[in-house]
């Protein structure tokens, strides 16, 4: 098998990798935002509840979570597809990390920003939405991109739930051709081909976000 054939074979699993990634993001982004903001603002039992939820998803090994949800939920009468379980587990795990950087970014923001917003008569939610979050999210772009890449790489684990993603395809091809060196090198290359554009996109986002913040020396 030629290199190109191997890559073509691996990319037959690209659709699963892509779907799990996109669905995973659909879990990760809202979870990170809501959990991070709630942890920043809440007190008492609500804060405890949010913290427990975040820690559960963040501190458990992915592979254990995947198996636990995929193989034990049916015992409770809940049948979820491999893609559904994979996206949920990966998404909430990454979202757990993301929530911490949202909280950190909100905490790092100068208190004067909130005070200025309140002093103008804006409500607390408006201050969060129009003043704090836009600044926090701008600061977090590099972290977000990092987590997105983490998520893409994490999807390799769904091959263990018998989903035919890129990693699963590589294993299949490897079992047919007995050429692990070339096949797994190709798999490495395949993930690089998928992840690198995300890095470039992240740099573009950072450049755009920093456009308004040029220092006075650059005028």
């Amino acid at each position, binding site marked *: 098998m030629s290199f190109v054939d191997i890559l073509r074979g691996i990319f037959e699993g690209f659709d699963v990798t892509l779907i799990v990634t996109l669905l995973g993001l659909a879990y990760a982004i809202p979870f990170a935002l809501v959990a991070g903001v709630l942890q920043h603002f809440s007190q008492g039992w609500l804060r405890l509840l949010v913290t427990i939820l975040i820690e559960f998803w963040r501190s458990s090994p992915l592979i254990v979570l995947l198996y636990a949800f995929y193989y034990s939920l049916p015992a409770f009468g809940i049948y979820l597809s491999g893609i559904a379980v994979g996206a949920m587990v990966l998404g909430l795990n990454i979202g757990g990390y993301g929530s911490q950087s949202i909280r950190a970014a909100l905490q790092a923001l*100068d208190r004067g920003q909130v005070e200025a917003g309140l002093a103008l008569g804006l409500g607390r939610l408006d201050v969060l939405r129009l003043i704090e979050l836009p600044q926090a999210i701008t600061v977090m772009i590099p972290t977000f991109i990092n987590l997105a890449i983490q998520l893409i790489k994490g999807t390799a684990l769904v091959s263990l739930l018998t989903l035919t993603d890129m990693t699963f395809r590589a294993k299949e091809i490897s079992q047919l051709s007995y050429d692990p060196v070339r096949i797994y090198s190709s798999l490495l290359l395949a993930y690089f081909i998928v992840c690198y554009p995300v890095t470039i996109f992240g740099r573009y986002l950072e450049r755009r976000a920093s456009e308004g913040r040029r220092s006075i020396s650059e005028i």
Partner: protein
Amino acid sequence: MTPIHELSVHNNAQDTMQAPAIQIENLSKWYESFRALTDVNLTIAYGERIVICGPSGSGKSTLIRCINQLEVHQKGRLVVNGVTLVPGMKGLSAIRRDVGMVFQHFNLFPHLTVLDNCTLALRRVRKLDRREAEAVAHANLERVRIPEQADKYPSQLSGGQQQRVAIARALCMKPKVMLFDEPTSALDPEMINEVLDVMTLLAQDGMTMVCVTHEMGFARKVADRIVFMDQGQIVEQAPPSEFFTNPKHERAKLFLKQILH
């Protein structure tokens, strides 16, 4: 007796103009065991210009930050624009929109242009549409003599320019009272005057102003009354002519000696 129809012509704005803008009675605030304010009494009329001065840590900033409840008081009565402020009350934003505040470190929103800094609250709080809000913003940027910077971001401006934008942002809301919390303390010396000039213009326009500042030249020129604080209490209140030539309190004498050399 006043006939009914004359009573109804007598509008609310007139009423509030006659009542004091700010009334502070026995106001106290403490952090743990530290007493930041102790039984402060101060009444400020509409149109009055007050300068609050005193050594650092004397409670000047805490006092004006209580007026828009950025700091919450524990004891005493505080009436702003006719509304009694109770710690933890709802509806604070309705009171704050009529009380402008200028901060020591400007606190402009770095992610918004100068124009958007000015229009944000107009659109969200006053519910103006973009065109109306921008017209108000431009008029106020004109007033602080910085109309040409409308499309820049705060980080592209000098400190003095940023502080003037902050003043314009507060003025856009048409506040009845303006609070200044050491507005020139973070500025390079050569930028102080451009900010003081704008504040002087405001004073000449009849704005009710409460300024915490160490700029004694400004105080002498603009203030109707100097309020001198020490250790969380107001120890002396006098018109500038009297305060600067004949301070009564020992601490005020010492303060003036040190600050005026």
